[in-house]
């Protein structure tokens, strides 16, 4: 799952090498903290959070195949 999120996020940003994703699993929930280059924050959040919401919707759906809940946190500082 982490690699899927990473592939998506890296494709969205200008600086893929600066993308860092941490993964923590607690029972049936996986927590992901995404850090991107400061200039790329808009690229993963989008106007009014549109891109971030799409990312959440898609990854949630994909993870539900493995009966996994997902929490995505995009670091803003």
């Amino acid at each position, binding site marked *: *799952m982490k*690699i*899927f999120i990473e*592939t*998506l996020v890296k*494709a*969205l940003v200008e600086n893929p090498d600066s993308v860092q994703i941490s993964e923590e699993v607690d029972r049936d929930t996986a927590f992901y903290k995404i850090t991107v280059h400061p200039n790329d924050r808009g690229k993963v959040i989008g106007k*009014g959070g*549109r*891109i971030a*919401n*799409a*990312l959440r*919707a*898609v990854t949630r*759906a*994909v993870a*539900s*195949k*493995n009966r996994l809940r997902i929490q995505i946190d995009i670091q803003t500082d």
Partner: protein
Amino acid sequence: MARVETSGSDLNEAKQNAMKMLGASDENAVVIEVIAEGEDGVLVQAELKQGFHGDADHESHNYELDDDTAKQIADYVQDLLNQSPLQVQVVLKGWHARYADVEIVGRDVPYLVGKNGEVIDNLQYLLNMIISRRVHPYARLVLDGGGWRKRREEKLRNQVMVIALEVQQRGEEAVLPVMPAHERRLIHNILKENPDVSTYSEGEEPNRRVVISPKKREDTNNEE
């Protein structure tokens, strides 16, 4: 002529964006209607005035996919989905203008369609974001999953025709349910040639709805 919906940080920027989308070089050629105004910008709907035409050289309208680029897009979608735990295959069904028609098939497709197509719409949105940056600024895809989008369009088309007829007979407006932008566009397009009704959108994203309203016959006659 197509009606577009766009936004800008102020009215002028929104107008410029709308002109770009319509391929208009003259600002007298577009009719602008402000839909919503907020702190972070203005949302407008715009269309070309009667008698004006979009610039034929307008790049995004003029751009057409070729064989290789369309394949590149489909391959990209397959590569991405290969990183997921889903068992799905990606099929390039064809391409028209700047759009690649890509369909996801296979056992796990239902995960990617979601309730009312919520997931496939979001995936399409993300992929178009990526494609515009990685493949070509004007290249886009239309993503379907197991024929869902096709069935949905068919259903919308039938419902809209029935509602338009009722609007015309009763002389009352009909407010449709909340829909994503591409479905609202589809409805505007279906009814744009209809002499009896007109359409507009109201409300703020993500709660925008299309309203179908009756046209007054006298008005159309006065234009003659």
